[in-house]
């Protein structure tokens, strides 16, 4: 099952290596990872999408992450009400004749063209991963020259539904 895990970490050198090393050592598969600074100075947030086989493995993953000295808090936010976004840039083969056709395809995705050249154009799309996937599939027939995705980043919505069985693991709790 795919899970979205977030970890707030102390922004110290080597922390990314610690976390990814730990996941690979214990044979967890990372599908995507994104890291960046947060509102607090010295604290970064990592968002992973991981594929785990069962609940027990998932519990191990969050516990092992929590054990790291530089990891402050780990949450599995998959089942929460969340906002999640990923950005992708797609360089599509195109000529002036195709340009407007492609524009028509990407428009419903609220995607924008950010670069154009003689024989290609680059499209930027933001959204949940399935939306990004859908657009990429639509563009594939034109020929994708280059594709880059940032990986998912996410956090819980300000308002959470009352009844949930969310999972959050933290030593600080």
């Amino acid at each position, binding site marked *: 099952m795919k899970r979205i895990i977030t970890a707030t970490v102390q922004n110290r050198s*080597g922390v990314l290596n610690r976390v990814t090393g730990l996941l690979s050592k214990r044979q967890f598969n990372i599908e995507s990872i994104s890291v960046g600074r947060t509102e607090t100075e010295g604290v970064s947030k990592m968002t992973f999408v991981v594929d785990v086989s069962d609940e027990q493995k998932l*519990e191990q993953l969050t516990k092992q992450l929590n054990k790291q*000295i530089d990891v402050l808090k780990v949450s599995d936010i998959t089942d929460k009400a969340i906002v999640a976004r990923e950005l992708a840039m797609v360089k599509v083969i195109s000529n002036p004749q195709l340009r407007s056709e492609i524009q028509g395809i990407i428009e419903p995705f609220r995607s924008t063209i950010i670069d154009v050249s003689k024989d290609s154009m680059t499209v930027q799309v933001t959204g949940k991963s399935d939306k990004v996937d859908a657009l990429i599939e639509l563009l594939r027939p034109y020929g994708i020259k280059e594709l880059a995705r940032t990986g998912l980043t996410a956090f819980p919505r300000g308002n959470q539904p009352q009844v949930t069985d969310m999972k959050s693991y933290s*030593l*600080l709790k």
Partner: protein
Amino acid sequence: MKLEAKPEVKAQQHVKTGADLLVEALIDEGVDTLFGYPGGAVLPVYDAIYRAKEAFTHILPRHEQGAVHAAEGYARISGRPGVVVGTSGPGATNLVTGIADAMMDSLPLVVFTGQVAKSVIGTDAFQESDVMGITTPITKHNYQIQNIEELPRIVKEAFHIASTGRPGPVVVDIPKDISSTVSEAKVETEFHLPGYQPNFKPNPLQINKLIDAISQAEKPVILAGSGVIHAEGSEELRKFACTHQIPVTNTLLGLGSFPGNDDLSLGMAGMHGRYAANMALYECDLLINIGARFDDRLTGNLKYFAPKAKVAHIDIDPAEIGKNVPTQIPIVADAKASLAELNRQNLTMKDHQEWLDLIQKNKDDYPLWHEQPEEKLVPQWLLQKVHEYTNGDAVVTTDVGQHQMWAAQYYTFNKPNRWVTSGGLGTMGYGFPAAIGAQLAKPEGTVVAIVGDGGFQMTMQELSILQERGLPVKIIIVNNEALGMVRQWQESFYEKRYSESLMGVQPDFIKLADSYNLKGYKIETQKQVEAILPDILANDEPAVVDCRVLQEENVYPMIAPGKGMHEMIGVRPT
């Protein structure tokens, strides 16, 4: 010309360098023993150690691996972190085995490694290695010092992390420019670790759940691991088990946490555990694991591990709970604190005499056994004699393999902090240097290193330390001219194809001892054991005892790999 360090030449008075700050921080932490080996990148550190000579006993091994294993033995017996100093590059990589060993067996170590100067890190400089990268997966935490001002704080953090919660090794990598730089800036010593807050006290709700479960149980059993020893909770465990008459079995590393001679003791469980212990784990309806991590050498095939039991697990490391065995009652807390809390509770148990009778019957019907050919030296018998001659009160260290299992089976431990062995990593060459550290931690005690002929040859260069320090470590080489456990598995599972496991060519261990000015003995018969071993063990001097034991002897009983607790082989003489 012989060079000697000249204490009378007073080192120049000068301002504090990073190395001086390090030495001060170590003194601050109460460190008085260092295990280390100098080299280019730690020259400034060694200069500072030289200036602070009186503060430390510095043990110089002949290979860095000796230093780190000695520090492990020291930590195991003293309960305080073992402190290791090594240089960059090969110095650091030679420490890796010991660091990994300490990680697996939860031993507190603080390891300082030199590093090339910051300006050349990453350029493949002379004796550079990526110590952070190499040690990240095998340490509880590691640091590379970036500014001299943070050095004292990091040393404090390192000792705190190594010795609290679930203990473990911490590496501090110090670039040479940091240790040689002079600093006048104000140093920081206060630290705050928001991501590291080990839970110490048990949750009362969980304790109540456990009390409920115990009061319902008809076949309870306690599995006591080394967590009980780390927490110094043996007395609480004894009280708890004896008050409620709950039988106790131990993991390999947990031996000594409960008196082995107590009626309630089942001895060691697991691959080479006792039949009664493994059957108790198989049949129990409530398993109370205190400070053990359900290692595969204990559980055998997980499908058959405690299949009928409700499992309670007390562990200071939450990640151990539910890792291998589904757990119904998790308690994240210190073992001693939890046992003390359990002892305070009102608990009335069901009558479980039938269970105790069954266990007693298994103990009586399936005791440990071994052949006893006339005159020949049988290793199991030898270990029993070592127990007898030391009144079961010696500190015993081992490597890994047959001799380790025989020591675990036949040297009954009645008190904690007597047993130093490489459990998780299973490191050959561990026992002898660990004995050196143990002896330093317990100068008055008898320390016996039980080693195999294979393992001893991996670290025997440390005989120099015995010679230099006059440490009265007794080395008993259980010599079967083979890598015994490898040979046993080849016999049992590879149709006796003894691929590279027989070691007929060996040094003359007596001459070897002699060359270090130590006494060496060779023992080949039971009579010789009885004649000379008692004196050797009682003497206040080191000894190397080459005991020629039967090569074909195997460790039994056994759970074959992949089999369950109830499928032991070799439980009775054939």
